[in-house]
């Protein structure tokens, strides 16, 4: 307070002047930026979060994949358009020999790592042995547990020997997240941590300064919380290759990943031209704002996933399959899609969505589609009545549409059905599921089923959604399911109905368990498909889950910047798009 007034006023003036000055300077910078960038083709991508680390093994979120997946490659991948297996680092499709339960993978020649070291079978064997020894929980059990050993027959031929036949060898071990690591870079790291007390933790903590890969892009710079810059790899072996009518680039010099923590500013940035693509699905509420913009295109793709309602099959009344079936008939999925999703989504009638063309069983019966409430009530009533249920006041719909709500539902033993709770995510987390839960509560109640919808924090639902957990019915969702429906063997089998297991419904069906075991061991894709079809039918009939709906994946990009995006079930933000999009204005 003792500062002289003059001095303070002077300081203030200086401050104001510097602020104004910097503003003006930056205004001019804004102008000079463009010619600078004009020389290079840069794809500017908006991301909501950033990768956890640059360690590809610490693959914690999609954001890690969006960035690190540009540097590393897998042996095979699900191809664009139809998800058929395509060789990536491999030269040809795997050669499986049923007699010896082994598989030969032949590698491409002439590929080098970013530091010039050639890529050989030694890298594949090293990566495999690392997984076999260190057992990273998220990867080991799904992809390596059933592998006996992996050996190099020569520099470009690798032999995988399986303990037992396992179908997920093709979909997991050779596929998505099993990136091949450069042996010459990682060997000392793995050796160092191998015999420590917590090898997994220590391996995850490893932070490469510059990841050395062999993918279409190379890492340049990461300013935490701000951006990640990668440049295209001039030696990328895939350049110029063609697959299913797509020609591979990359046709850009750089990708600049910019972090936007909220959708509102990302939308503004897209409109302003600060970014070319928002790499996450946007809510339908933004559509009107975007549709008027001349340079923005909006894509809609169905999701390979669904929101579902799970019953605790160990508890009454859900232990009765008839009760679960009746509950299914009472849910008006058409209404949910039409009114709650505002048509920005699809009904989910099968645990394998139709978009997953090869594995989806189109003959699974669809419940209640296009039917009136009266028709659906008739079905539900018939099921319950046949199973010995009764009402004090039975629910009725008259010809003129007037409804008499049901009251006092009783089980076949004459005891009233107890009031149970339906856990739904809270409205601030997902308004659609919260509202859907309220409707479902209303539909069931009207029919005389005593239920209370309880909005609950997602973390709490996740904690309770355990085979040993405390719940009656909950609503959650599988957003991103793998193409190979291996999850049918984990979500509904008896061996997973234990603490920490994935069969949260505690659904037990020995016939289904047997089919699952059979499917797991079936190495022939067509034969496996027939078993998987059968499993879908059983789940549809026994309803441990009611699949409700799938929200469409809505995305937006600048059509004045890049063209040639590849539409896939999870949207246009996929590795194929990044390899094939071309700048709209030629260089």
């Amino acid at each position, binding site marked *: 307070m003792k500062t002289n007034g003059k001095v303070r006023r002077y300081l203030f003036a200086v401050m104001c002047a510097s602020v104004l000055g910097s503003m003006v300077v930056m205004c001019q910078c804004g102008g000079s930026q463009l010619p600078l960038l004009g020389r290079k083709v840069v794809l500017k991508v908006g991301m909501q979060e950033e990768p956890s680390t640059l*360690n590809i093994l610490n693959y914690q979120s999609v954001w890690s994949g969006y960035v690190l997946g540009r540097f590393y490659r897998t042996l095979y991948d699900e191809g664009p358009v139809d998800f058929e297996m395509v060789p990536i680092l491999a030269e040809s499709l795997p050669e499986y020999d049923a007699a010896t339960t082994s598989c030969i993978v032949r590698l491409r020649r002439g590929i080098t790592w970013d530091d010039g070291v050639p890529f050989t079978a030694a890298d594949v064997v090293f990566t495999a042995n690392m997984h076999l020894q260190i057992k990273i929980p998220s990867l080991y059990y799904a992809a390596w547990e059933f592998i006996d050993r992996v050996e190099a027959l020569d520099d470009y031929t690798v032999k995988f020997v399986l303990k037992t036949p396992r179908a997920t060898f093709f979909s997991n071990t050779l596929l998505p997240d099993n990136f091949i690591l450069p042996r010459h870079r990682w060997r000392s790291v793995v050796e160092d941590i191998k015999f420590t007390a917590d090898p997994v933790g220590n391996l995850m903590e490893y932070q490469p300064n510059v990841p050395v890969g062999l993918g279409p892009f190379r890492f340049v710079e990461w300013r*935490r*919380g701000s951006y990640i*810059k990668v440049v295209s790899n001039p030696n990328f072996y895939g350049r110029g290759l063609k697959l299913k009518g797509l020609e591979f680039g990359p046709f850009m010099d750089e990708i600049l990943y910019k972090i936007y*923590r909220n959708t*509102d500013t990302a939308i503004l940035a897209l409109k302003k031209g600060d970014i070319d693509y928002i790499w996450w699905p946007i809510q339908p509420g933004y559509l009107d704002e975007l549709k008027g913009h001349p340079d923005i295109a909006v894509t809609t793709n169905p999701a390979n996933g669904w929101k579902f309602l799970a019953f605790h099959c160990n508890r009454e009344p859900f232990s009765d399959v008839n009760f679960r079936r009746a509950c299914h008939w009472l849910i008006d999925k058409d209404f949910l899609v039409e009114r709650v999703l505002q048509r920005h989504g699809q009904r989910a009638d099968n645990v394998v969505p139709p978009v997953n063309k090869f594995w989806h069983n189109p003959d699974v019966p669809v419940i209640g589609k296009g039917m009136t409430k009266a028709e659906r009530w008739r079905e539900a009533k018939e099921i319950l009545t046949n199973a010995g249920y009764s009402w004090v006041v039975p629910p009725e719909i008259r010809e003129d549409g007037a409804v008499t709500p049901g009251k006092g539902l009783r089980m076949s033993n004459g005891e009233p059905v107890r009031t149970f709770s339906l856990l739904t995510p809270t409205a601030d987390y997902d308004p659609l599921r919260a509202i859907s839960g309220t409707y479902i509560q209303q539909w069931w109640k009207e029919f005389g089923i005593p239920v209370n919808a309880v909005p609950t924090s997602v973390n709490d639902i*996740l*904690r309770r959604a355990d085979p040993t957990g405390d719940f009656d019915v909950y609503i959650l969702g599988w957003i991103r399911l793998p193409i190979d429906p291996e999850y049918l063997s*984990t979500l509904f089998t008896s061996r*997973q109905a234990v603490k920490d297991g994935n069969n949260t419904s505690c659904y037990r069906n020995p016939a289904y368990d047997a089919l699952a075991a059979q499917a797991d061991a079936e190495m022939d894709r067509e034969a496996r498909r027939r078993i998987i079809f059968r499993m879908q039918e059983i789940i549809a009939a026994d309803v441990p889950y009611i699949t409700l709906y799938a929200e469409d994946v809505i995305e937006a990009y600048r059509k004045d910047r890049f063209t040639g995006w590849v539409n896939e079930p999870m949207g246009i933000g996929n590795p194929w798009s990044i390899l094939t999009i071309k700048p709209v204005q030629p260089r």
Partner: protein
Amino acid sequence: MTFWHYLGRKLFQLALTTLIIVTLIFFLFRVMPGDPVKTIIDPQMPPEARAQLRAQFGLDKPPVVQYLIFLKNAARGNWGVSFFQQEPVFRIIMRKLPNTLLLFTSAVVLAYLIGVPIGKRIAWKRGTPTEAVVTFVGIFFYTTFLPWLALIMIWLFAYKGIPLPWGGVLQLPLRGMMTPEIWSDPAASALTKGLDVAVHLLLPLFVLVLIFFARFMLLMRSSMLDTLEEDYIVTARAKGLEDRVIMNRHAARNAMLPVVTAMALSLAFSLNGGVLTEKVFSWPGLGTELIDAVMKNDYPLAQAAFIFLAVIVLVANLIADILYIFLDPRIGFES
């Protein structure tokens, strides 16, 4: 009691409070609904994988044992490893803390430099239309919903832009603390980069300053109004001092005392606003880190971030207490 005794006692209190906060936060996170192992949603994870993860996170032991292990490690400076980032949390926090401090300290300092003199003057001019208008504006910003205000500001200054009298449009950056195109350009000079950060700072700073300013101004105004009723102000006027001297040396000097403490306390309450600001402006600070960690039940990171913020607030209060000694001669020590 000497100053050093006083400081020692205060530091001891601070340590004790920190220990209590650490304990509370530790157990609070563990009774909070949720299970970090369950937040990994993956149908491919068999039960044994989750059990292994639980052991890796150290969550297989009883909470009291976990707590003792945590205390032992914390005493050695090891705050644990983030479950999901797999990085020592101390390093994560140290990386984000400077960004938060940059935004917050500059906002607090600016808001103080603007808010306190204005609060002082409008209290002096009590009863005039100026006072009514400025007070109304202050209350408006004080009670305003921060993300809403921030989005309006972004839309106005960063999207629409302000036309300049000599042509062109002044557009501030939309997000973050740097322009990737400038920072990733090897040719950009340090000065350009520095100015770039300054320009990015403007908008979030503006919003935070508006809100802090309103808080500080209203605090100063009410404190000043109380002070102006004091007898020594009448004495000062009777002495024939100039208004400026009375306002500054007699009224404001005394009115500052409660404001210093209130400001340190208001820092604690402005944390939520700070977190929201970081989120809306995509500012890479501790606040967003904290929210993410809480959402994912990443105990080590969430508790460390909380403890850090708590300690910052405690230290701010300690500084206020010490500042108070120098501002108020009534709290004296034998030298």
